[in-house]
């Protein structure tokens, strides 16, 4: 049996750019450019990066919420990219997605009961009482009571909505879930509550998870493995602890260094990373990071470094920092 539950191989997702008088395709945004990674059962794997780095598109492509342009997504020995629409739909029982914004991702016209029973109805044929049992047990897990079943999303706070949204994703007892920035729409004091809930449910339900976030602190807390993405490609990938302790890719180092410290005394004189993320429709040649990198050489400008295993981690860099 395969050691890995999920094996993403050379995933590419391009979006057409239309323009001109006849709205012809004049180019492509390379949202995801050759991404590969693997995920074991019960593991939490984080994709971290700034806006436009393709982390979200990667997550959606894995679940075929967006159809990838090329590559394979092997889940439990089966290539998801080769399945028909109906097969994908059935597969969703085991593979779910948690959205960023709970204010927008719940149908405003459905009450909690409808929201939670709907996925069950789509994938199982259950009697009314079985339905009720499963909804109520899920409700208990997210800390809701039965009398909240008839309420509508707008009657809940942001944190509560995100609980409902998590419950809706997990009620079919999936084996794998992609969580796309599940706490970034929430207030600071609520974020911790939701993260705790996620970790708790992940352990209870033996979930494997791809966790997408721009928040490096959150990623450190929740994941054991991490991939740092930049402009559609993975720059550095490995155990979260090691990468956070000793980032070796210049971008990872800059990214980690940019997180404001919580100690005003440690407000060190560090150099902020200059420049901005290039336009993904017109990426630079060679290494995507070279225009902002102070270690860039001629080689970096000309040829894109491939992600290769270097010691305890995978790196896409010709001139990595010392371990």
């Amino acid at each position, binding site marked *: 049996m395969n050691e890995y539950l999920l094996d993403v191989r050379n995933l590419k997702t391009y979006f057409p750019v239309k323009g001109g008088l006849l709205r012809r395709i004049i180019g492509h945004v390379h949202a995801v450019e050759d991404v590969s990674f693997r995920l074991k059962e019960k593991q939490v794997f984080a994709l971290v990066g700034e806006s436009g780095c393709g982390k979200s598109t990667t997550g959606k492509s894995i679940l075929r919420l967006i159809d990838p342009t090329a590559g394979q997504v092997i889940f439990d020995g089966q290539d998801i990219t080769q399945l028909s629409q109906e097969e994908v739909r059935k597969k969703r029982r085991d593979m779910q997605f948690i959205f960023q914004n709970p204010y927008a991702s719940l149908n405003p016209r459905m009450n909690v009961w409808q929201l939670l029973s709907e996925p069950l109805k789509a994938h199982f044929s259950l009697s009314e009482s079985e339905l009720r049992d499963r909804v109520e047990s899920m409700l208990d897990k997210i800390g809701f009571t039965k009398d909240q079943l008839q309420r509508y999303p707008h009657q809940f706070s942001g944190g509560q909505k995100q609980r409902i949204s998590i419950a809706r994703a997990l009620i079919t007892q999936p084996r794998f879930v992609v969580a796309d920035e599940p706490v970034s729409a929430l*207030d*600071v004091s609520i974020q911790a509550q939701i993260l705790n809930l996620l*970790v708790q449910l992940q352990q209870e339900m033996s979930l494997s998870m791809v966790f997408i976030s721009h928040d490096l*602190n959150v990623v*450190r807390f929740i994941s054991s493995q991490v991939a740092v993405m930049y402009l559609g490609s993975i720059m550095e990938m490995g155990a979260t602890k090691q990468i956070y302790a000793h980032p070796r890719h210049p971008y990872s180092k*800059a990214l980690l260094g940019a997180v404001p410290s919580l100690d005003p005394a440690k407000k060190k004189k560090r150099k902020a990373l200059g420049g901005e993320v290039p336009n993904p429709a017109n990426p630079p040649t060679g290494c995507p990071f070279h225009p902002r990198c102070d270690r860039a050489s001629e080689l970096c400008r000309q040829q894109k470094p491939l992600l290769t295993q270097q010691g305890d981690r995978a790196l896409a860099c010709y001139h990595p920092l010392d371990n």
Partner: protein
Amino acid sequence: MGHLLEISNLKISTPRGKNLVPLLDKVSLNVPKGQCLGIVGESGCGKSITATSLLQQLPYPLRVTEGTTAFDSFQHGKVDLLTLPSKKMRNIRGREIAMIFQEPMTSLDPIFTIQQQMFEALQFHFPRMSHKEMLDKCLSMLVKVNIPRPEQTLSSYPHQLSGGQLQRIMIAIALMNDPRLLIADEPTTALDVTIQMQILDLMNELKESNDAAVLMITHDLGVIAETSQHVAVFYAGHIVEEAPVMELFHHPQHPYTKGLLKSISSLSGDSNLLYAIPGIVPPGGSWDAHCRFAARCEYASEKCLKDVPALTEVASGHLCRCFLHRQEVEA
């Protein structure tokens, strides 16, 4: 040191039906000259409306229902910003008090070029300035905020520039006339971390060279730690704690501040569970006559559900709105 701006007992309310519901309740704050005062709090805590009320820009239908301010204007002397006649207010806006906003992408008028919009900042206050002078001034400001191609940028429209560049331009516009006070309302919230760091560095740098006071409004304690000398923590429409920045981060007194710091720092710890403040922030209109944090507070006692604690000094320059005191709450 004298205060540039003193806010006393500011109260802002919104009409709901026939009643006025308070959104900000008796806030008093001082902004010292040349320093950065940070206001930190979660959404709906009243931090943003505090700032907008100072320039008489409260969104409809909010209104100031109580309170006064004293701003040390070099044109008009000591003035109350809240009641200043609109003509004098216009002299102060952009000249003595400047403001930058959360969303750089929407803070510039989409149908005018950067040059037209930067020129305005000068024209409104110095109508006689020549085109050449204005151009020179704008170019030098753009260089100051590290815009790579200033001439080209001047002739661009906002949609042609990135969020980071636009926020730099907003800062350039704000600092154009060397204001005495810069109000920054979540200036980096809409930006990526690497860009956020660039902007914060830039603001720190400019503050030193310009000697302007800054009112930094944010939900991010990290931003406060990076920029501020003095911090006020807002919760549910009033100040719950106020202290110099070192004091606040190293010796937080209010259970809410403690909780926030604890939950953020537990993110970087090795524990399996995060420290989380339970419950939700009470929204405006549901503030009963007791401590607004009591329902979420692990130390809450009977007393906390009966009375509203006053903001009292617990150490030099350190104010806290809590019945418990230092010794008792040490956790």
